């Protein structure tokens, strides 16, 4: 058992060690201060935070619907809304093009009425990232909502609390650890998003070229730079995961 667990740790650690081993340390600073790299990093952070915000804003109501409301075809809706987790991201990107692109089901009207084309914009990056990242929040929060008893909600209601007040003061504190965990998972997924972004939003420095795209393209001509950029992404995600993990574990342990 212990040996298998150790092997698993090695399995996850080894690729990272591989990157560290190949990293051109002497030139790392030069690659990191490169204007294009900084631009891509800034775009990545901004877009992934927007995607996380949207995931929370729209994902929590969806999770609540799936966990608390009985309606026919609920499992179908759940599968539909988490499909993008298992869909190859490039396929997701193409599907988004067919839906929201200039000739898409909805996109064609946006284009005709408002002369607006979503693809090739920063907003398209956020949409692509939200599309693949939100399910991580939905399934985490839904699981938490299922575990917590809605009897407390009912109790609050019978004591005269309105639905919004009940949600804010009773339900939300109960699911807070799961909400944070789900948001972090979504953020991490959005930060690493590649396939849907490049397919739906394209690749233009400063507008749609996020870090994973910069890493991928640099890999073809400048592998050294791509390794350094990849490591930078890992450092950022890793520090956030470590910092927040400690926090949500302690809050989960001592639930008020």
């Amino acid at each position, binding site marked *: 058992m212990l040996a298998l667990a150790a*092997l698993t740790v*090695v*399995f996850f650690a*080894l*690729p990272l060690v*591989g990157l560290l081993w190949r990293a051109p340390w002497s030139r790392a600073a030069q690659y990191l201060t490169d204007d294009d790299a900084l631009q891509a990093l800034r775009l990545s952070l901004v877009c992934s935070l927007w995607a996380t915000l949207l995931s929370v804003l729209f994902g929590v109501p969806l999770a609540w619907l799936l966990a608390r409301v009985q309606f026919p075809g609920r499992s179908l809706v759940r599968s539909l809304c988490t499909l993008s987790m298992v869909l190859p991201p*490039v396929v997701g990107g*193409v599907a988004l*093009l*067919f839906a929201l*692109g*200039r*000739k898409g089901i909805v996109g064609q009207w946006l284009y005709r009425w408002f002369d607006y*084309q979503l*693809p*090739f914009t920063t907003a398209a990056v956020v949409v692509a990232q939200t599309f693949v990242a939100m399910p991580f929040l939905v399934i985490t929060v839904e699981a938490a909502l299922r575990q917590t008893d809605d009897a407390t909600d009912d109790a609050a209601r019978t004591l005269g609390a309105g639905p919004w007040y009940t949600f804010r003061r009773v339900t939300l504190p109960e699911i807070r650890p799961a909400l944070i965990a789900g948001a972090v998972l979504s953020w991490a997924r959005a930060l690493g998003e590649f*396939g849907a972004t*490049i*397919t739906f939003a*394209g*690749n*233009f*420095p400063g507008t*749609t*070229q996020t870090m994973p795209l910069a890493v*991928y*393209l*640099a*890999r*073809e*001509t400048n*592998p050294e730079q791509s390794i350094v950029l990849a490591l930078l992404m890992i450092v950022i995600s890793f520090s956030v995961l470590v910092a927040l993990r400690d926090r949500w574990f302690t809050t989960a342990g001592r639930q008020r």
Partner: protein
Amino acid sequence: MRRPELTPIIAMLALAACAACTTGTTGTNEADVADDADVADHTGQPDRITGEIVVFAASSLTEAFTAMAESFRAEHPDAEVVFNFASSSDLVGQIDEGAPADVFAAAADEPMTRLTTAGFTATDPVVIARNTLAIIVAEGNPLGITTLADLATDDLVVIVCAIEAPCGQGAAQVLDKAGVTLTPRSYEQNAKSVVTKVTAGEADAGIVFASDVRAAANAASGVTIPAEVNVTNNYPIAVTSSARNSAGARAFIDFVLSAAGRAILTEYGLLTP
């Protein structure tokens, strides 16, 4: 999209699997022996081609090589051609990281030179085809685009390949020669993704290989770029030094260079030497 980063992980998993079971690896060897016995039985055909032939080829060869594999199989029924299509420089990276390729076919000289210089080729590269660039537009060319200069307007959504990809380098050269300055909306990862966005109606025009336009003939139209500003790029092919099936690799390259192979390449919009 296969990535070379996977290789060490797969190798490690294989290693772990071997450590866990001591008898596991003999299976494939037995299959090899059986194959050899088969060859001996088949009198008069000592160079019968068997087994898997792994071909790493530039993505602009996708359609031509897929058709090639079918014809090749008709001649060598015991061999199976397996493809990995990606951008040429991507494939160089993969081979460099130890990906198991028998044959490498690039969409430009430069990636092949990189591989040869690094000692990863077992045969001298041979040019199998040439390609030129063309403008790809929506089917029927509704916007009436006729020249490269027509693309230099903000009213059009024009996309090109990233400078990292051969089609991007070609596009940069062609635009330079024609004295046209573009502001593309996106630098796509390869020619195929330019084609996808043009056929989906997301972009009005793009610059890709003539063979890509041919491959998308039922969903897009092409506008020829005049020869005096166009660039031609070579498609070199070679057996890799790590080839596990060099006999198969050589047979596949011979087939590509044969009259039948050349006919297939021409059919898919490539020029043959």
